C-alpha cells in the first residue's frame, strides 16, 4: 500500500514553502499534494518519491509530520472510470474520507488516491474487480509510458 505524508502547517505566508524547501534539499519529488484547510492551520498531504526519507527530514526540521497508508489506484483515464471504482465502495458502505486524483498520461492513465474508513477491505474489493492497487515503489516510478 502507498504511504502519504501528512504535515501540519500554520496557515500563514511562508510555511508551505518551508515544507517544499526541505523536500527540495533532499531531492525528493512530489507526485501530488492537497491541503486540508482548518482555519489557523492546515494539513498538507503529499505523495512523494521517498516518503520515509521525507518524513525523517521534516521531523528533523521540527515539523509535525506523519505517514499514513492510503489507497492509490491505477486506472484508465476515461469517462466513467472513477464512477465504477466508487460504486464498488458504495455497495459495501465504505466511506471515502478524503481523496484526490492525478493524471499520469492524458487519455490513458490516471491515479486515484483516497483515505477510506476500511482500508484493507477496500483494497481487497478493488483488487478483486481487477483494479490495480499501487504499492509505494510502483506508484513513485509511474512513467508517462
Amino acid at each position, binding site marked *: 500500500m502507498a504511504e502519504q505524508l501528512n504535515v*501540519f502547517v500554520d496557515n500563514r505566508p511562508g510555511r508551505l514553502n518551508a515544507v517544499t524547501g526541505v523536500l527540495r534539499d533532499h531531492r525528493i519529488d512530489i507526485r501530488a499534494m492537497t491541503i*486540508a484547510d*482548518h482555519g489557523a492551520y492546515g*494539513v498538507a498531504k503529499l505523495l512523494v518519491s521517498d516518503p520515509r526519507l521525507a518524513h525523517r527530514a521534516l521531523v528533523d526540521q*521540527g*515539523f509535525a*509530520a*506523519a505517514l*499514513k497508508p492510503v489507497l492509490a489506484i491505477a486506472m484508465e483515464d476515461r469517462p466513467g472510470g472513477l464512477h465504477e471504482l466508487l460504486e464498488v465502495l458504495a455497495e459495501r458502505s465504505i466511506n471515502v474520507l478524503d481523496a484526490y486524483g492525478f493524471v499520469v498520461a492524458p487519455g490513458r492513465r490516471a491515479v486515484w488516491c483516497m483515505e477510506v474508513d476500511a482500508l484493507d477491505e477496500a483494497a481487497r474489493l478493488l483488487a478483486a474487480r481487477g483494479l490495480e492497487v499501487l504499492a509505494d515503489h510502483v506508484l513513485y516510478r509511474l512513467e508517462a509510458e
Partner: protein
Amino acid sequence: MSVPVWNPAVEFMERETLERLQFINLRQTVAWALKTPFYQRRLAEIGLTHPEDLGSLRDLRKLPYTTKDDLREAFPDGLLAVEREEAVRLHTSSGTTGMPTVIYHTRRDIDHWTELVARCIVAAGATAHDVFQNMTNYGMFTGGLGLHYGAERVGMLVIPASSGNTSRQIHLMRNFQTTVVHATPSYLLHLHSALAGEGVTVDQLRLRKAFIGAEPHSEETRRKIEILFGIQAYNSYGLSEMNGPGVAFECVYQTGLHLWEDAYILEIVDPETLQPLPEGRTGEIVMTTLQRQATPLLRYRTRDLSHLVGGNCPCGRTHRRLARLNGRGDDMLIVNGVNVFPSQIEDALMKMPEVGTNYLIQLEKRGSLDRLVVKTEIDPKPFTGDPRDLDDLRERIGEALRSAILVKPVVELHEPGSLPVSEGKAKRVVDLRPAF
C-alpha cells in the same frame, strides 16, 4: 432631592462613632480569628494571643497581612473559625494554580452580607417597587446569589436570570418590564447590540437603572451604557474574599464607591513597601472583615488598585469612597467579568500530552464582548496526521480550559517552534483590547 437610604443610623454615623464601632468589631474579629489554626499561628508570631492585646484601632497596623497564597495554604479548613455545622454556605474558587480557596458563611454572616447589598441597592436609588433582573452567574460566583439576597431583602421582584442567553434576557426584560439589571458593563453593551435582532427597541423596555461591576471599566463606558439605554448605571465593587458584591457601591451622586466601613476596615497601601498611602494616592486595597464569623480575614491584600476620594459626598454618608478601580497589582486577567490567571491556563495546557511547550494568550474585543484566544503549539510526536484528531484536540483543549477558568476560549493550534519560547521573559499574554 431626598437621598434614598436603607440604614440611616449606620450610613450617616458620625466618623468618631463609626471608628469606635470598628474597634469593637475588630476585637471581635480577632477573637474569631484566634479560633482558626492559621491565625493562631500567625498572630502568635507577633505575640498576640488575646483580642484585648489590641489597645486601639491603630493597633491594626501591627497585624500581619493575609494574602491569596495564605488562603490557598489554609484550604480547606485552616481559616474556618466556627464548627462546620454552624456554616450554612461556602463559595470556593478554583484559584490560580489549581489550588482552590474557600470562604465559609454562617447564617449570621449571610444576613450581614445581605444587609450590605440591600444598602447598596437602595443607595443607587432602587426600591421595593422595582423589577430586578440579575444577569450575573449564580453558583460559586458571588455576584449572582449576593445581589439576589440583597434585592429580595429590599423587596424587589427578583428575576434570577443568571448570565448568558441574551435572547432570553431580552424577552424577560420585555415580558416582566424589568426596571433594574445587574450585569458586567461589557455584557450590557452586548445586550444592547442584540436588541434589534430580537425586534425589541429600548422604548419597549422599562429599564431605569443598571448595577455594573466585576470588570474594570471607564467612565466613558458607563456614560455609553447610560445613553444607549437611557438609564443610570452604578458602579459596584466586591470580591469573593470579602463576601462578593456589597463591599462598595455608588450612591445616586455617582462620585465614587462608598465602602461600608462598619463591615470592613479599608487601607490603601503601597504594594511595594506596604506603607499606608494618603488620600488621593493610588495603591493596593487592603481590607479587614469586621462582621464575618466563619472566615474572618485580617488585612487581606486584594491586589486591586484604587485610591480614596477626598471630601464629603453630597449624599451625606460618612463611609468613605473608593475611586473607580484602576487595575490590578498582579497578572490576573478579567475576561467578560470572570477572573482568570495565566497560570491556570498554563496548568491546563501542560496536562495535555499533545500540546507542545509554548503558548500565547491573546485577548481581543469582539463587538462589546471579550474574546480569549489561546494559541498552543502541537507536539510533533503524538501527531497522527489526521486533521480530525486535531479538531478533536482543539475541542478537548477548549473543554479543559473551560473547566479550569470558566471561560470558553478560542483555541488555535500552531506548528512546533512557531510561538515565543518559554525560556526567559517571554511575553505570554497579549491584550489587544482597547484600554478601558
